[in-house]
């Protein structure tokens, strides 16, 4: 192991690799900071550039984009209230209110440190526990997956806001939206009405941009007089104090470690990934907090949970890929492709046949996390200047970015039409006080839930298997416990409000 580690480090720490990684980090941060541009897009665009590099340099550059991307999503989530990537949805819940209260620098600094520690924890877990964790992750059958999704759906209870009925309604609406288009098992067209517009369903990213970005940007321009007089997004007195934020981040060690471990585990489960991890980590932090009522109003605990949770998925996602050759997400599949381009077979023997490469990748994750930290701490003052840009510039520009993001996803103009429709609907829902986060969660989890439910019953029609398989039962018990605690908390909050 030591030989492989030293050999990997020797290959990694060259000037050209460090420069390529630094550029990758910057590209990842910037791409993810633009609403509508995802980490997957950034990494796919990077792939052809790595063909001429040697294997470790190529993978290290892509890992740099990957790690940078998880932190970059924080920027637009905190400053605009629009998640830069699906993995930063929960970051909008507290980082944006904190920024709105005049502390955008604090929100960003907390997020940067939490992201760094999340990535750090994930690398440590990756090095120590990759093989055993991967074996657990792939033992999950359709029953366990379905139960895991049921558990994840209970997060909705934390996201419902003031009205449980409205939260459940938008969560179910998300599940329904996910059923439009081709049936995942039989390929039958559902609710498409023979229209080209609906033939491919609602891509998740289009729903995310429409729901959050379009409705948020329209809300920004409601204050007609303020906008016309050049009002900026935030108050102009912006304070950025990274050391104070470091102290504050470290003052929540349990939250930091718990959220990071949630991120690693969810990242290690193929198909789950960062878009769920940040919400689950946020939910767990809220339940464990002494002041759950502060969540959603700009509490540091919420920012730390979401950002450490989503960044930790970067290491978690590599676990099944490195240990078993199974890509946990689209990004991992692109990373695998980059290795295969160089003639390296990815599978259970990867760590034995190319130990230096694997340990080099672990080190690259660590170096990338450090680079992201340095790049963000030095560049964040520049990003914070976004808050001084008048709304008259920022709103049209971000709307154009949303259109590019929606179109570039599949090169389809129909996705841009859907963006408009979803955006208008999201704006109406937000005006009527419906929480939007459960809708996004429903769209993410819907296809996974349906596919695994049907797959489980296809293997065996016995419903009792959900309760007799130990991991599935454990997850369902956790889900039940989660609902009981949420209802109790909701009632207590209502009693306190009434008193």
């Amino acid at each position: 192991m030591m030989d492989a580690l030293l050999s990997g480090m020797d290959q990694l720490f060259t000037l050209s690799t460090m420069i390529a990684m630094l550029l990758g980090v910057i590209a990842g941060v910037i791409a993810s900071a633009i609403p509508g541009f995802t980490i997957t897009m950034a990494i796919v665009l990077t792939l052809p550039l790595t063909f001429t590099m040697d294997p470790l340099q190529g993978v290290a550059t892509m890992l740099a984009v990957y790690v940078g991307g998880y932190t970059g999503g924080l920027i637009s989530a905190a400053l605009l209230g629009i998640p830069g990537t699906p993995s930063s949805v929960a970051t909008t819940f507290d980082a944006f209110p904190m920024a709105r209260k005049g502390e955008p620098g604090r929100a960003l600094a907390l997020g940067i440190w939490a992201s760094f520690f999340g990535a750090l924890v994930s690398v440590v877990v990756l090095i120590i526990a990759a093989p055993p964790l991967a074996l657990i992750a792939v033992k999950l059958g359709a029953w366990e997956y379905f139960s895991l999704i049921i558990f994840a759906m209970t997060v909705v209870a934390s996201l419902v806001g003031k009205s449980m009925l409205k939260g459940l309604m938008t969560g179910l609406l998300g599940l329904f939206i996910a059923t439009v288009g081709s049936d995942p098992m039989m390929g039958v067209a559902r609710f498409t009405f023979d229209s080209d517009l609906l033939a491919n369903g609602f891509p998740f990213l289009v729903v995310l941009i429409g729901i959050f970005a379009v409705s948020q940007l329209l809300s920004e321009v409601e204050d007609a007089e303020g906008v016309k007089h050049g009002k900026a997004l935030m108050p102009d007195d912006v304070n950025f104090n990274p050391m104070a934020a470091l102290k504050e981040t470290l003052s929540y060690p349990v939250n930091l470690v718990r959220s990071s471990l949630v991120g690693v585990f969810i990242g290690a489960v193929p198909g789950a990934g960062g878009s769920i991890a940040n919400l689950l980590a946020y939910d767990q932090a809220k339940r464990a907090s002494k002041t759950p009522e502060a969540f959603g109003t700009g509490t540091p605990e919420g920012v730390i949970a979401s950002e450490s949770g989503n960044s930790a998925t970067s290491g978690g996602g590599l676990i099944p890929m490195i240990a078993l050759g199974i890509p946990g997400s689209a990004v991992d599949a692109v990373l695998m492709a980059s290795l295969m381009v160089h003639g390296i077979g990815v599978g259970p023997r990867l760590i034995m046949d190319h130990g230096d490469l694997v340990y080099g990748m672990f080190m690259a994750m660590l170096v990338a996390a450090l680079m992201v930290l340095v790049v963000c701490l030095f560049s964040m003052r520049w990003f914070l200047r976004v808050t001084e840009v008048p709304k008259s510039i920022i709103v049209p520009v971000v709307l154009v970015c949303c259109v590019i993001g929606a179109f570039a996803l599949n090169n389809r103009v129909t996705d841009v039409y859907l963006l408009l429709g979803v955006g208008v609907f999201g704006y109406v829902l937000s005006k009527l006080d419906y929480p939007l986060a459960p809708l996004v969660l429903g769209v993410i989890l819907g296809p996974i839930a349906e596919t695994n439910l049907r797959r489980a019953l296809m293997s065996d029609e016995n419903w009792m298997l959900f309760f007799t398989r130990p991991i599935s039962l454990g997850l369902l018990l956790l889900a039940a416990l989660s609902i009981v605690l949420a209802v109790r908390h909701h009632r207590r909050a209502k009693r306190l409000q009434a008193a």
Partner: protein
Amino acid sequence: MSQSTTDRSPSGERHAPGRGGPLAHVLLNIALAALFTALFVRAQALPSSMWEPLGSGSFPRLVLAALVALNLAIAFKEARAFLRQSPGERGQVGAWIWRHRLAFAVLALFAVYIIALPWLGFSLASLAFLLAGQWLLGARSLKALAIAVVVALVFSLGVDTLFRDVFVISLPRGLFG
């Protein structure tokens, strides 16, 4: 996390409560309940499979049934709120629309931009949208207009060139491309 803006202006001041909010809820939720009922009926025509017990219609039907029930429950709750509240001052709806005039104008402009995108192409449509959008949102002085032109050029022609030449992604070219 939910944006509680029903009876608040962007500046945060609370407006006098009226029946507008509950009425809007009742109308939306009844419309949604009717839509989901129709979709539920349509979902029954989805084919079943000899290979699996559920088929392609079961999951959507389950979700749609729950959606109908929830929308009716919300409509019922809001109808009671509507009956409990006294009518608001006259002209509240008009005042609400006037307060949101800029948001509606931006939305209308955005809709025109998206509809024009396949015909005009990304560069031209974005250039026009960015110029019109910035003007609409208050860029009226000579300096602000000059900045608006630069911003519009960078984020339309500049971005199009970046995507075409660097990322090899072709944004919509339109009839003139």
